[in-house]
């Protein structure tokens, strides 16, 4: 059970770290975050079914495509509300989310699709446990990417610029950092991370236009647990969510259905008890 919880948290942290980037650097709580994940999943599915490209191998293509899309969305809409009231920003991304989801329904219908990769059912025996190969691979990659992002933020010039902008927009611009470009970059990166997470979902689960919202909400839960905009707490918060979901699934009768509610419950409790987040 512990292992299932941990494995699941890999995908969660990859999804949430993207959202945390958008919230932390730009200050935009992006309700459409999960929709980019959904588009990434469809892209992965489509590349696999039409061209036989393995979703994992297609990750660079998908990431680039979703990065461009995210950048375009930023230029066309997000950029115009940066100085607007917070609620207007929220409503705009909420509208984007509804728009993208229904666009996907119009284009591809609401039916779930499954990409069957050759190694989908393969499992590895690790000690007394049997673990699915796709789950292991996804966990490893997701964690590597999340940690990679931390390294980029911590060590490179761009990463440092992003952190500077996150701390103080005006101060950063006085130091000669092109704030607008950093925002564009951060938003594109944020959506690209969601897109990558989406392509990984193609490996394990079915793809449908409705998955976006679910992941947006789970990413919210994780961010609320970590503290809004706290990028570093995301990994721990993902573990909290992944483990509590696995716990409910295993120990509560009919746990599968209840597990769906775990993250909402966590949001409610954390917001009411400690709105600053647990890991801050």
């Amino acid at each position: 059970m512990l292992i299932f919880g941990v494995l699941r948290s890999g995908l969660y942290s990859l999804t949430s770290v993207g959202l945390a980037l958008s919230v932390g650097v730009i200050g935009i709580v992006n309700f459409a975050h999960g929709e980019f994940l959904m588009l990434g999943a469809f892209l992965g599915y489509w590349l696999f079914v039409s061209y036989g490209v393995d979703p994992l191998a297609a990750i660079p293509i998908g990431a680039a495509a979703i990065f461009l899309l995210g950048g375009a969305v930023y230029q066309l809409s997000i950029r115009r509300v940066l100085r607007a009231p917070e609620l207007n920003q929220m409503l705009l991304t909420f509208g984007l989310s509804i728009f993208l989801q229904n666009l996907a329904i119009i284009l591809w219908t609401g039916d779930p699709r499954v990409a069957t990769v050759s190694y989908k059912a393969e499992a590895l025996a690790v000690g007394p446990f049997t673990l699915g190969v796709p789950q292991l691979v996804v966990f490893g990659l997701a964690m590597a990417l999340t940690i990679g992002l931390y390294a980029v933020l911590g060590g490179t010039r761009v990463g440092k610029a992003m952190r500077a902008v996150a701390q103080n927009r005006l101060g950063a611009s006085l130091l000669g950092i092109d704030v607008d470009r950093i925002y564009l970059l951060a938003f594109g990166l944020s959506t690209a991370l969601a897109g990558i997470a989406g392509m990984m979902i193609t490996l394990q689960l079915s793809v449908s236009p409705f998955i976006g919202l679910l992941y947006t909400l789970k990413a919210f839960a994780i961010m609320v647990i970590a503290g809004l905009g706290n990028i570093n707490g995301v990994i721990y918060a993902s573990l909290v969510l992944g483990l509590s979901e696995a716990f409910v699934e295993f120990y509560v009768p009919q746990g599968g259905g209840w597990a769906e509610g775990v993250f909402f419950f966590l949001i409610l409790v954390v917001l009411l008890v400690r709105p600053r987040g647990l890991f801050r």
Partner: protein
Amino acid sequence: MTGRALVRGGLLLAVLAAVVVLPLWVNRTQPYYLQLSINVLIFATLALSWDILARTGQLSLAHAAFYGLGAYTSVLLTTRAGLPIVAGMAAGAVVAVVAAVLLGVLTLRLRGIYFAIATLAFSETLRVITNQVRFTGAATGLVAPPLLGGHRPSQYLVILTILLALTLVSWWVNRSRWHFAFTAIRANEEVAAVMGVDVVRFKVLAFAISALFAGITGAFYAHVFLFISPLEAYSLAVSVGALVAPIFGGLYTTAGPLVGAVVLRAGEEVLRSTVQRGYPIIYGFLLAAVILYMPGGLAGVWASLAARIPRPARRGARGEPAGS
């Protein structure tokens, strides 16, 4: 009474008469339109009751929670306890109000985005619970007894009465001292409190009024469509619709949410017959478009149009930009 007031009153009466008579008259040949009118009125009631809460600066994503609570309470009481439907609907409204007061008190400290996320979590938690518990019919849902023997014209008059009552309440709120309290809280809670506004009381009161109408509308919907399920009664689409209509029509006004609801539902009907699926795309598109290009909604457009026509007798435009 001045001449203008007479004209206004006459116009209002004419609209009212048309709203009462037209759908019933059309019903003789095309029952579909009466059904559609009922849907529009349900939608309009949700939109306007959401707006009353929003006037205190609380942009909620929990409207579906009160709608669903009203529906489930009424159906459970009428089917399991044998209560008459009217009593069930009243109980549905009461339960919604109690839940709203609880949620309102719990979320008092939360602002903006935190408030929105917490209310969404509340609504979805209720859905998950209802989906799991056998007593509430779990995922399969419940069959509801028909209101007034399923007589559509009478049902239409019931929802019309509910909406008219809500319209009066909303109109009164915007005319009375409450208007200033609500606006002050929305603009700045701390300042409002310093000025002597009882912030807690007004925020919770707005929650209660808003939930009262959402709850009774949910109960009405259950007894008109005769079936409820967690996915539909607690649907995020309900909360979304209740939020987009006022924003599109014009926030914090009485007419804005009503007009927004009618126009949106009409647009949705057109899309429904052309693209068949994914028609809620109109909500997303309009929401984004309004935020980007017409921050006052239809009411804002109306006000700026009216401002261009010089008319000294006019008492200034009352439109207000979104999120101010």
